[in-house]
């Protein structure tokens, strides 16, 4: 393959429309006769619904229909579930798992604040909201579960009575003789770390538009989702229609980050309303709904212990993990097991013992968000590594250096399976080299010297390190159909959906190279079930590898067909046909240059010579990804902490990373920046806060604090490249990585800055009030008062 575009920072093809305000997001869709939906949502964390009276709402001028569960019962099938336990994992790990049925609307019980109780459809959104206020619901409050650990106690009220307890998932795994390792160790440290609820929070909220076509008996729905085929499957099950009668389109989508990779009640309720009313229906989630109705994330507690020799050699890790699942468990094994599989990361640790429990609570359901278990587990690991460094009086960088795996150790197998059931084998990379690259680029030694000088002046600067090794690009597949038109321009359809990652450019770079046509000749169609029948969707840093490999292979097959047709037309051997920039030439005969359009035209039966094939310039490939590829990075944060106010200022942030071969370097860098910003949010600002009645206290953007440009520094990046052997182009996933390490790096930096006071950082976000509390706790333990 001539790599003309692969590896080049070409400008994004999709940008001009966004820049001109000509993108088309779900809320931009306007259809004749369209109605607008709004929802009555439970104000209680847990309540029985005793009665619903809708008469007053129905009488309100402008209201078309009011729906309760009873009105929609025929379509109220349980929402689809993710996260079944693959056989390869079941064979090695004994997992107990329960996944309750979630319905699109409460039947008789609400299990979190924001769960949908009724739907009002009206001529405008404002009137629909007026209607919602007129729906009278009698609730009988039931006991709430505001805390996962408390909910796991035997005396806790049980959310799903037939379970007997609230533990939806539990397993133990590990390898090696952990007991012996702890006995023999010179140093043991143990700490409890809390990772709060924080969330993806795309700036475009979710939205659904649905239109029923009675002529064809078909539904078209526009949905701001990352997973159109998954939404389609849910609708197939609920509506009882064949897939081809249900077209799900994700138009331009304003950020997803995993939040939009979930199955949601509104995916079904809006189509149901459109079918019931025979009118197009739109629902645009408002920000308050988003806070309580869109999936939350993170929310873990780790009791982690590490054992090591005096020289820092790590011997064993033990971890007891609690995952707060919220009211349902639609993601099954995904978050808990991701957490476990990524705990050790770049470290060589010969023995591991983990126990993980997922508990249901009466809070918004938890689902994967950028990193999906990894930021949580890396927080626990990198914090305990820093605790160990302190215990050993060793520089945290040096301790890591002594324990990180390097290229010579790879492929390296952890003696537990990956979440997909396959062996967990790091395919390529050099984690120690990544660490060294980061330390060099950040000027680690100089920073330490400066830190000492500043401390004397009363300035408290801290340096924090965190690293991860991340299984990316989980399969099993994503497909692509590549098809040429008469001009030789290509349309590439894939199940991968874009939420801003630049698919229209990166995928076009792959296709244009493999086809031998200009980049501008490629149109990428993602997020449309009518364009390709099977698909998985975009999440888990999977699209470049899964869809990209299919596009590469399918484009290659189409090129083979072009070469055969050109050979016939030009009476040359296929091996002598060259195709570049949309022009065919016979090797060594520059005069033979023939535009691709002529080759295609010559294959159309109307014009074709006898014996020439048909104009079949199309190929479909469903690349099967055997298992994940391992991306890795080291992050370094530099902060100043004001012990007088607790304010933390992030001064520098550096990322040294490997994501294999790179399609478009500037897009990759943008992905890192965005991930880091979200991780910094988790480290310093963001938390979904509930009170002890499981009431959500963060209802607006005044409460849930997304970082601005003033809370972030310029982000420095160092690129390393260790191609993956697990796909034809050597790629690895990069979408999530940036978000994994910042909370740990920042927490380590804050603790480092406040080392003279003996501060122990055990949770995030590190807002100023929290930091002063930590200083107080340190003083109470006998540390120096601030």
């Amino acid at each position, binding site marked *: 393959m001539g790599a003309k575009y692969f590896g080049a920072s070409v400008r994004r093809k999709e940008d001009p429309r966004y820049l001109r305000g000509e993108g088309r997001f779900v809320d931009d869709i306007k259809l004749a006769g369209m109605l607008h939906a709004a929802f009555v949502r439970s104000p209680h964390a847990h309540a029985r619904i005793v009665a619903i009276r809708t008469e007053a709402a129905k009488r309100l001028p402008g209201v078309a229909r009011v729906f309760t569960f009873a009105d929609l019962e025929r379509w109220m099938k349980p929402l689809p579930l993710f996260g079944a336990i693959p056989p390869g994992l079941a064979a090695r790990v004994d997992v107990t798992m329960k996944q309750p049925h979630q319905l699109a609307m409460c039947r008789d019980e609400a299990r979190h604040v924001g769960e949908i109780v009724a739907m009002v459809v009206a001529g405008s959104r*404002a009137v629909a*909201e*007026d209607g919602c206020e007129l729906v009278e619901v009698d609730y009988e409050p039931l006991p709430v579960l505001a805390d996962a650990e408390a909910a796991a106690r035997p005396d806790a009220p049980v959310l799903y009575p037939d379970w007997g307890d609230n533990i939806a998932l539990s397993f133990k795994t590990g390898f090696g003789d952990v007991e012996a390792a702890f006995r023999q160790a010179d140093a043991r440290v143990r700490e409890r770390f809390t990772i709060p609820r924080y969330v993806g929070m795309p700036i475009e909220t979710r939205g659904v538009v649905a239109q029923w076509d009675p002529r064809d008996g078909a539904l078209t729905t526009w949905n701001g989702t990352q997973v159109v085929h998954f939404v389609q499957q849910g609708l197939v099950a609920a509506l009882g229609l064949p897939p081809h009668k249900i077209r799900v389109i994700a138009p331009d989508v304003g950020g997803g980050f995993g939040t939009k990779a979930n199955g949601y009640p509104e995916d079904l309720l809006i189509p149901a309303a459109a079918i019931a009313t025979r009118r197009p229906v739109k629902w645009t989630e*408002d920000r308050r709904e988003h806070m309580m109705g869109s999936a939350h994330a993170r929310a873990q507690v780790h009791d982690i212990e590490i054992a090591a020799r005096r020289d820092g050699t790590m011997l064993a890790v033990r971890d007891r993990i609690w995952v707060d699942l919220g009211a349902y468990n639609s993601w099954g094994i995904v978050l808990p097991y991701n957490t476990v599989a990524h705990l050790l990361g770049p470290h060589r640790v010969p023995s591991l013992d983990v126990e993980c429990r997922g508990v249901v609570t009466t809070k918004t359901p938890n689902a994967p968000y950028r990193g999906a278990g990894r930021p949580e587990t890396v927080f626990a690991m990198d914090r305990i590594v820093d605790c160990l460094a302190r215990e050993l009086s060793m520089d945290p960088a040096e301790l890591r250096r002594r324990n990180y795996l390097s290229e010579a150790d790879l492929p390296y197998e952890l003696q537990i399976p990956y979440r997909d059931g396959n062996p967990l084998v790091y395919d390529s990379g050099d984690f120690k080299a990544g660490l060294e690259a980061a330390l060099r680029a950040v000027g680690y030694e100089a920073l330490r010297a400066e830190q000492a000088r500043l401390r004397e002046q009363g300035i408290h600067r801290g340096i924090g390190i965190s690293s991860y090794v991340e299984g990316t690009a989980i399969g099993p597949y994503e497909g692509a159909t590549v098809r040429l038109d008469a001009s030789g321009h290509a349309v590439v359809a894939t199940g991968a959906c874009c939420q801003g990652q630049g698919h229209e450019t990166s995928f076009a770079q792959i296709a244009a190279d493999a086809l031998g046509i200009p980049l501008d000749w490629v149109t990428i169609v993602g997020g449309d079930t009518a364009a390709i029948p099977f698909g998985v969707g975009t999440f888990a840093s999977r699209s470049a590898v899964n869809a990209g490999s299919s596009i590469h292979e399918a484009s290659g097959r189409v090129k083979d067909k072009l070469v055969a047709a050109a050979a016939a037309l030009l009476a040359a051997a296929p091996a002598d046909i060259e195709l570049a920039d949309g022009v065919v030439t016979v090797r060594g005969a520059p005069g033979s240059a023939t535009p691709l359009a002529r080759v295609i035209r010559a294959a159309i039966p109307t014009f074709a010579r006898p014996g020439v094939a048909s104009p079949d310039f199309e190929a479909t490939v469903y690349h099967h990804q055997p298992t994940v590829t391992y991306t890795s990075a080291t992050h370094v944060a530099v902060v100043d902490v004001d012990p007088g*106010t607790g304010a933390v200022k992030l001064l520098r942030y550096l990322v040294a990373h490997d994501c294999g071969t790179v399609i478009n370097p500037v897009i990759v860098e943008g992905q890192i920046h965005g991930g880091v910003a979200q991780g910094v949010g988790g480290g310093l600002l963001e938390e979904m806060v509930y009170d002890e009645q499981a009431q959500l206290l963060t209802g607006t953007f005044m409460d849930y604090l997304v970082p601005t440009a003033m*809370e972030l520094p310029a982000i420095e990046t160092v690129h390393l490249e260790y191609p993956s052997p697990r796909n034809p182009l050597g790629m690895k996933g990069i979408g999530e990585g940036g978000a994994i390490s910042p909370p740990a790096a920042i927490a380590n930096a804050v603790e480092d800055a406040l080392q003279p006071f003996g501060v122990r950082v055990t949770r995030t976000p590190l807002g100023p009030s929290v930091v*002063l*509390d930590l200083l107080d706790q340190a003083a109470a333990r006998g540390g120096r008062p601030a």
Partner: protein
Amino acid sequence: MKPAPFDYVAPATLDEAIGALATGGDDAKVLAGGQSLIPMLALRLARPALLVDINRLRGLDGIREASGILEIGALVRQRALERWAAGRSPLFSEVFRAVAHPPIRNRGTVVGNVVHADPASELPAVLLCLEGVVVARGPRGERMIPADRFYRAPLTTALDGNELATAVRFTLPPAGAGWGFAEVSRRHGDFALVGVVAVLTRAADGTVARARLAFFGAGGTPVRGVAAERALEGRAPTPPLIGEAARAAAAGLSPDGDIHATAAYRRRVAATLAERTLTAALARCGGGA
């Protein structure tokens, strides 16, 4: 998130506006810049039956400085005062950097911010520190309400429901006064967790001639740091005295806790920031505020 229905008038004269407020009674609300009111409408936390939009009134958009008094009309946008302050008032310039963001300041009014009475907002504390006055017009005419009698509780002031604040007046610090301003907020532009504004003047002998200090985000209203003022006035401002004064003022605060900061945090950092702002103000004495 759409507002509940309401009626709307945009009177052309002050008398009409006051008349409309009187007619609307408790269910009428004044709409000026709207930067606090419209979010409350959208969230349906405020449900007025009538909005009286004063943006069409004439003569309320003036910034007038005379005899050390700065009068700001009810339709002066925060951005306009910020522009006025550039090169004239480093104190106001610094304060406005902390007040939300330019698109909010372009629309939000100074008077609206002052009368909205968010206890964590900067301008009410500045009004208090600069011994300002709110000019109110109602059916019975005009009255002046001094800042220290204006704030009653969060979002609650001494204005009657049918009164309209037509202006606020700040007493500008005298030549040679020093100023200090500091706040801790979660993000740039957010309401403060806690903040302090201070103005000091020194006598020829170096003692503090006059000290004014106000806290915000430290209780249900902005609070004057009277204890600090008394501790400093007439005395030589040594660092220990400043610290003592700051702590004395903060000791009298009764802040609330919320999801962003505990009450104890606010009280403690109020003292820290008071000390820092007083120190900064002292250092700036002779420079001009």
